[in-house]
Each structure stands twice: as structure tokens, then as C-alpha cells.
């Protein structure tokens, strides 16, 4: 399909900073990537690398004192129009029409993502009534259907229950049902399986894939779990301290990764072929404190291939190393 070549969502040089008394935290510092219809983009990185803030920036729900200071987020709407999301007021009618209706969000904490004092049904029908011109009764029917479609048994009963009455897996399914209730064209799943056990995790991922195939939905999957990425994604963006350090197809990333950070991440995955009782390789050091970000390449203090006088002096830029793969590292720049 030719349509596939046209991104649904295009993020360019996005910078979201948090201005605090102690200093400015550059949560996202120049991220660029595209999300295509029907495809899954994985965004990986350690905790605190700006994955979640990127998602919140796209939906324009970054909490104060966070602010998008630079960059563009372009969404192609259902009618074919392109909208520049950074130009919209966060609480404007247009932005609210996009939120929930065109972009759905699944959060990493199914426990606290539902209000403790409202029923699941209250929150799901609310979204349906808001974005579709339907009666309360019709919204409830669609809510039950949405719960059924994500594999929740007895949805006509579950809809009147509270989130804490559901098990972790069911709760996450309900969360996905809310996000999908208005058939968004883009689903942002922020660590959708982190809080779940492995079996439930696999079920949820299967579910996401099935639903994606049904309506050609794009998925932006935020995770730190490379196993999930390998299983789910078409393209991958690796982030470190708010920057994209490498991006490419899932094969590029797993089989010919370029950036030392990506390589280090991959080597720290336990493998079934590995000798047992051997210490897993780890990335030395820890993520720098957000207020004390190193000059030059943000990864150089932990990098095995650090080049003195280069990495700590200049900032690398994201450059193409092949047709689809880009990396931000001086090792690959002439």
C-alpha cells in the first residue's frame, strides 16, 4: 500500500523540558521519529529516559512545570488533514477531539489508572459519549462490546464493577478497552504489561496485535522490555536521556545494532543458551542525575568505546548508516 509510506504521526526534534527551581530537566531533548499506520513502533530505554514524557507530549498532557519548548508533532487526521499538535492549546476543542478519539493511551499502572470511586463503565461510556454522538444507552452497549472485544468475560456485569474488583490482567484489558472504545488510529501503550505476570503479559500483547490487524491501527509501544519489542515491533527507537540514540527496523536493532548503548542493552538480556550461574553483563555506572547531564554525548561516561576529546566535547547527531537505520554516535561519523 502506498498509504503506508505516509506517516500517521511524525515527531521532529521534540524537546520537552521541566522548569524547576533546582534547574531544568530536559526530559525529552530532540526526539524525532515516525509512526506508520498498521505498524508498531517500539520506544525503548531505561527508566527516566523520557519515554513516557514523549507520549504525554504527543497527547499534550504533560504536567506543569513541563513544557514543550521546541519541535513539531504532526498528526494526519482521519479526514486527511495534517495538524500540528504543538500549535494547539492543550485544553482546546480540537486537541480534546484528538485525545481519546484519534489517539488512545494505555498507561503502565492499571491499578491507579482508573478512578477508585467510579465504575469501569462510568469511565468507558464517558469517553464514548464524548466522542461519538450517541445516547447513554447506546454508549453503554458499546462499552460492553469494547470490554467483550478485549476478552473480558461477562462484560455486562463487569461494566458496573470498580477497577479494584478486577484482577490485574482484567484491569489492564479494561484500560485497553477504554483506550480503544472510540477506535483510535494510534494507540500509545506506555509499558502496558510491566505490572503483569508473564502469562497475562503474553495475552495482552496478543490482544494488541489482533486488534491492530483488525483496524489497521498504529501502535506506539513504550517499554524497557526488549523481549516485548522483539515480539511486537516493526520499528524501534532507542532513547537515552531524552535523546534518540539509535533507530531502525526491529531486525536492524537486534541483529546489527550500532550504538554502544543499544549493544549494551542487548547484551544484558538473559539468554536461554547462556551458561547458568554467570553474572549477567550490566551497563556500568548509572543514569546521570538529570540536573548534572554530561556535556557532549550523554552516554560517554558509561560508554565502553569512549573517545576522549571527541565524545565529551561535541554532541553527536542522528545520522543514517543505512537505508532505514540511524545512529547518533561518533564511531559512525566521518
Amino acid at each position, binding site marked *: 500500500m502506498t498509504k503506508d509510506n505516509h506517516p500517521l504521526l511524525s515527531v521532529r526534534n521534540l524537546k520537552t523540558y521541566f522548569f524547576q527551581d533546582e534547574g531544568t530537566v530536559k526530559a525529552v531533548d530532540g526526539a524525532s521519529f515516525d509512526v506508520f499506520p498498521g505498524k508498531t513502533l517500539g520506544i525503548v530505554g531505561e527508566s527516566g529516559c523520557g519515554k513516557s514524557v514523549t507520549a504525554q507530549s504527543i497527547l499534550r498532557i504533560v504536567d506543569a512545570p513541563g513544557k514543550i519548548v521546541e519541535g513539531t508533532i504532526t498528526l494526519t487526521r482521519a479526514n486527511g488533514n495534517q495538524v500540528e499538535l504543538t500549535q494547539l492549546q492543550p485544553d482546546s476543542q480540537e486537541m480534546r477531539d484528538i485525545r481519546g478519539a484519534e489517539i488512545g493511551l494505555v498507561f503502565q499502572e492499571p491499578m491507579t489508572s482508573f478512578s477508585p470511586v*467510579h465504575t469501569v463503565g462510568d469511565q468507558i461510556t464517558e*469517553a464514548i459519549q464524548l466522542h461519538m454522538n450517541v445516547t447513554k444507552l447506546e454508549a453503554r452497549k458499546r462499552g460492553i462490546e469494547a470490554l467483550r472485544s478485549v476478552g473480558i468475560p461477562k462484560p455486562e456485569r463487569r461494566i458496573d464493577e470498580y477497577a*479494584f474488583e478486577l484482577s490485574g490482567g482484567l484491569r489492564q484489558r479494561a484500560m485497553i478497552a477504554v483506550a480503544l472504545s472510540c477506535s483510535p488510529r494510534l494507540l500509545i501503550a506506555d509499558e502496558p504489561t510491566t505490572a503483569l505476570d508473564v502469562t497475562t503479559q503474553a495475552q495482552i500483547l496478543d490482544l494488541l496485535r489482533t486488534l491492530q490487524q483488525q483496524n489497521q491501527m498504529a501502535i506506539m509501544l513504550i517499554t524497557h522490555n526488549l523481549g516485548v519489542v522483539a515480539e511486537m515491533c516493526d520499528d524501534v527507537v532507542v532513547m537515552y536521556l531524552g535523546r534518540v540514540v539509535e533507530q531502525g527496523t526491529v531486525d536492524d536493532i537486534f541483529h546489527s545494532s550500532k550504538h554502544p548503548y543499544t549493544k549494551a542493552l542487548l547484551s544484558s538480556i538473559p539468554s536461554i543458551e547462556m551458561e547458568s550461574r554467570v553474572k549477567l553483563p550490566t551497563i556500568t555506572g548509572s543514569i546521570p542525575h538529570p540536573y548534572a547531564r554530561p556535556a557532549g554525548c550523554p552516554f560517554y561516561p558509561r560508554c565502553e568505546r569512549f573517545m576522549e576529546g571527541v565524545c565529551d566535547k561535541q554532541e553527536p547527531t542522528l545520522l543514517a548508516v543505512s537505508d532505514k537505520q540511524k545512529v547518533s554516535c561518533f564511531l559512525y561519523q566521518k
Partner: protein
Amino acid sequence: MIAYMVRRILLALLTIWMITILSFIIIQLPPGDFVDTYANTMSAGGTGITQAEKDALREQYGINQPMYVQYLKWMGLIMQGNFGMAIEWGRPVLDVIGDRLMLTIVISLAAIVFTWALALPIGIYSAVKRYSFLDYLFTFVGFIGLAIPGFMLALIVMYVGFSYFGSNIGGLFSADYAEAPWSMEKVWDLIQHLPVPAIVLGVSGTAQMIRIMRSNLLDELRKPYVMTARARGLAESRVIMKYPVRVALNPFISTIGYLLPYVVSGSIIVSMVLSLPTVGPLLLKSLVAQDMFLAGTIVLLLGVLTVIGTLISDLLLMWVDPRIRLGRQ
């Protein structure tokens, strides 16, 4: 759920019984009795009172009997709905309290309405627009309101009223209506006198409640369910009012239990300063005079109201908070 309610009610009855014993002991604790106090007052006034007269009085009021007999007699009377005589007033206790009870409830309700109507919106604003100029202003004014003792504020208000407006703003009625029987004019007179005591009584509560609402709401605003509500495309005002505010209000429901006795006794010192004809000053007076039937009844009333208030707030909380209703901690 029914079992829970039955258990709560039985426990409440047990607590009330304990309160009757405690309040009886408390009013008996100070040395001497009503007759001693009465004799002192009489001799201070120049007319002495003989030992024989004292004994006769003690005999008459049953004060010379052992404590447990007095307690049992008192309980017996209460069971029959008779709360005894207010010795100092020479009238039945219920009569004396009844006069003031209605006025106390009116004033306290006015104070509570004032408090809630002012504190909740300001608290919500302060939390949502945290660190804004108005938030700082409300915090500043709120702390001043919290720091000024109520009686001090009452004195200042009265002083200002008297020296600048030439009117005495104490009391609840103008001189013309104080002793008049109830009529529409008297009610109107009462309404005109209400704002000053209601505000004076409500100021510190308002300041406190703004702080509580602000911090409750700040806690809730950080929760992921607020962000997911936003992500559904709800308007910001609807997100705030429907979700975090609703959750942040729950703790206030548990304070209703403490409001009930407050509604009845009011603030004693402020009421004295503003010369409000409420139950608070009555309690103080009866304790000073060791008028045990009157004091005992008021203390008992406050205890019972606390228990009932707590029961009501527990049941209300169960009703509004599904986490409690459905038995999850």
C-alpha cells in the same frame, strides 16, 4: 453489610453507656458540691447560710448519698426522659437547654455553611493553580486566620463595630426583640445578626479546611487516573471536578462526626465574648456552679452526639466510597 451496621450500632450504644459513667465522674471530680458553691456565693453577698440549711439543701437534692446511688438515680431519671432540675435556674434542665439549643444550631450551621462555601472552592483553586499569586495570597491570609484566636477576632470585630459604626454587634437580637415572642420580624432580626458570629466562628475552620482541601487534592492530582481522564479528551475543568475533587472530598465526610457536637456546643469562649445565647456559655456556667444535672446533661449530650456523628460519617463514607463499601482496604 447489615451485620456491620448492627455491630456498629451496638458498639455505639456501649460507648454511650461508658460516656454516661465518665461524664458523671467528671462533673463530680472538683472538690465540694453545688451547695458549697451556693453557700460561698451567698456569704460573698453578705447573707450567710447555716450548716443546717446546707444539710437540708443536700438532702433535698440527694447530694449527700454515695456516688453510685446518685449515678443510678440519675440514670433512672434519664431513662424516663427526665434530665433533672437545673438547680441554679430552678427550672428543668431540658427547658434551660432547649431555649438555647435551637439558636446554637442556627449559628453553627451558618458558620459551617460559611466555612464550606468559602474553603472548598478556594482549596480547589489553590491546588489546581499551585504556586500562583492567588495561591500564595490565600495561604498567607489563611495562616493569619488560623493564627488569630477566635475570641480575639471577636473582640476586634466588636471594637471596630462599636467605635466606627456605633453599633453593638454582639448578641443575636436587637434589644427590641431579645425578649419578644417569635415573629417574622424577630426571625429577620436574627438573620441580620447572624453573619458576624458565623464568620468569627468560621474563620479558623475555613483556613484549616483550605489547607486540607489543597493538600488532599494535590495528592490526587498526581494520580495516573487524572492523566488517563485527560487522555480520554475530557475538558480540564470536568477532569478536575469529576475525578480528583470527588476523591479528595471523601476525607471531609469523616469530619462530619466532629461537626455534630460542635454544632450543639459552639465555641464557648467566642460565644461568651459575643454574648451569644448558646449552649456553650451555659455549659461553662453550670460547671462553675457545679450544677451537676445541667452540666451532666450537656456533657452527655455532646458525647452522644459525637458517637452518633461518627456513626453517621462511617455510614456516609460507606455509601460514597465503594472501596469501603465493598470491603477493600
